[in-house]
């Protein structure tokens, strides 16, 4: 098995989900390499060696400065061709999904997405994909080489192996059509406070809070627990909380040790963004809320009473 892992980077760091996929790839054995594509990314490439890659390819070129998918397809296609990779793996993101799909048709390769795991069964690689609102797990396979797989963000934790990778330059040959789209305004990070993707504890608020100012309850509990604040799509759309805190299908995917859902019904669009959490606690006044189907502890009751009281109890307990 000869695997290439695409490492996405933002703000001078490789994203945690892509390092998680690298750890998974390394655990499956064989040759594991990674690729970082951008402008001025050689330093990042070396750093990735500590997370399980034997070789890290650095595609360093000004034309890769913007985080756009199409020029990266050209870089990855060239690497797969020149280095004969039989497996190419990605951590799901807006960028990675677009790269993977275009690469699949460029290489006439099979693409399986939304994978929660990848295992070897009888000498073949089998992907595990939750489907239909996670009511069923589908085993998926490939009949092509290379095989392309995209993993749910947060499917795996990064593992620091401390190794050093050999950093090699990747050829950057870009097709004309790949440079037609142009970034004219880069993303501005609106977030403040700890990033919800890296936090060990996330306290999330939903429509059940009733009003924007009730987010103070969520913020207070998050502070007591030493965690970050998240929000559902519904409340972000309503303007109660910034998009940078949105968890779910069109927001961020988080996998903290503890996720506390406050006034969140738990529709599938939300579930996909937080189901990788270690322990899920839900507070909701509706005993039939879907979130109770997958919360480890569900509490039926009035959040306006329970949340401030819990914050007080946690502070008391931590003070002793």
């Amino acid at each position, binding site marked *: 098995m000869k695997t290439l892992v695409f490492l996405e980077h933002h703000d001078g760091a490789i994203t945690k989900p892509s390092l998680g996929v690298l750890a998974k790839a390394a655990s499956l054995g064989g040759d594991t390499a990674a690729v970082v594509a951008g402008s001025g990314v050689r330093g990042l490439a070396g750093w990735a060696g500590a997370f399980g890659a034997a070789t890290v390819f650095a595609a360093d070129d000004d034309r890769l400065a913007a*985080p756009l998918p199409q020029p990266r397809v050209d870089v990855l296609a060239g690497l797969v061709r020149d280095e004969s990779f039989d497996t190419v793996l990605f951590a799901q993101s807006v960028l990675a999904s677009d790269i993977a799909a275009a690469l699949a*048709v460029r290489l006439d390769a099979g693409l399986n997405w939304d994978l929660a795991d990848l295992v070897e069964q009888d000498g073949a690689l089998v992907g595990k994909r939750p489907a239909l609102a996670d009511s069923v797990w*589908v085993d*998926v396979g490939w*009949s*092509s080489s290379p095989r392309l797989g995209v993993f749910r963000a947060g499917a795996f934790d990064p593992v620091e192996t401390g190794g050093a990778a050999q950093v090699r330059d990747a050829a950057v040959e870009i097709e004309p059509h790949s440079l037609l789209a*142009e970034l004219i305004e880069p993303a501005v990070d609106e977030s403040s406070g700890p990033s919800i993707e890296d936090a060990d504890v996330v306290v999330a608020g939903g429509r059940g809070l009733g009003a924007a100012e009730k987010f103070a309850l969520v913020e207070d509990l998050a502070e007591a627990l030493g965690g970050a604040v998240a929000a559902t799509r519904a409340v972000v759309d309503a303007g109660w909380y910034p998009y940078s805190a949105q968890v779910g299908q069109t927001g961020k995917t988080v996998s903290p040790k503890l996720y506390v859902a406050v006034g969140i019904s738990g529709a599938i669009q939300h579930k996909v963004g937080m189901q990788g959490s270690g322990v899920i606690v839900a507070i909701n006044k509706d005993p039939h809320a879907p979130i109770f189907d997958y919360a480890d502890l*569900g509490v039926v009751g009035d959040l306006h009473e*329970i949340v401030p009281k819990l914050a007080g109890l946690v502070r008391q307990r931590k003070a002793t």
Partner: protein
Amino acid sequence: MKIAVCVKAVPDAATGKRIDPASGRLDRSGDLAVSEFDLHPVEAALRLREEAAGEGEVVVVSLGPEGAADALRKPLAMGADRSVRITDDAFAGADVGVTARALAGALEREQADLVLFGQQSADGDGACLWAAVAELLRLPAISQVSELTVAAGAVTGRRQTEFGYERIRAPLPAVLAVSDAINEPRYPSLPGIMAAKRKPQEVLTAADVGGAGESRTAVLALAPPPSRGERRLVEDGDGAASILAFLEEKRLLR
């Protein structure tokens, strides 16, 4: 301007979705409806045509079974001019590559200035088809677009990524995937519904779009999801104290 909108007919929400255990494929034998996600690009296309004072054409393109014919009337009733449906048994179980090639084949015939997609499929949860289609057509692509403007032969999209909002511009022709935050799709009017019946609804076979390729992926088995372990529900008593005790038990208070 000519705009092609790619839509998918999926099992109606009322029917529910199930996977046929024999084939490992989604059961599409029941009532189908155009995916809610795909009504947003239809709406976006109609608005662009309205901004151009009605100049241009909106064509709906879909790969789907015979049963998708009724579903495709909805975008026509909203105001699209005609539909092109690729229907062939050879496409049963088509994976993303095969689907992209079929759509690209139909789009080659249309030569639209703008190709629009919704943000994801409503059944397979795929969110990447546009990128494959753009690659096959060798066109620029912009995904997750929550605002779009067309001016001077170029399209500009505001897109949402994990890191915030960015703006991307591409010359036409281009492929865009719009998010469901971009607009509120209109409801078909009664005259619209009547008019839809007389609009052209073309049907293409695999041969018309360059043949059906072979899927490179396969469903091997179905299984119940792994259990998350024991779940507890507290309906009475002191909710806050129950949570505190639970967090202590799980050693989450440090």
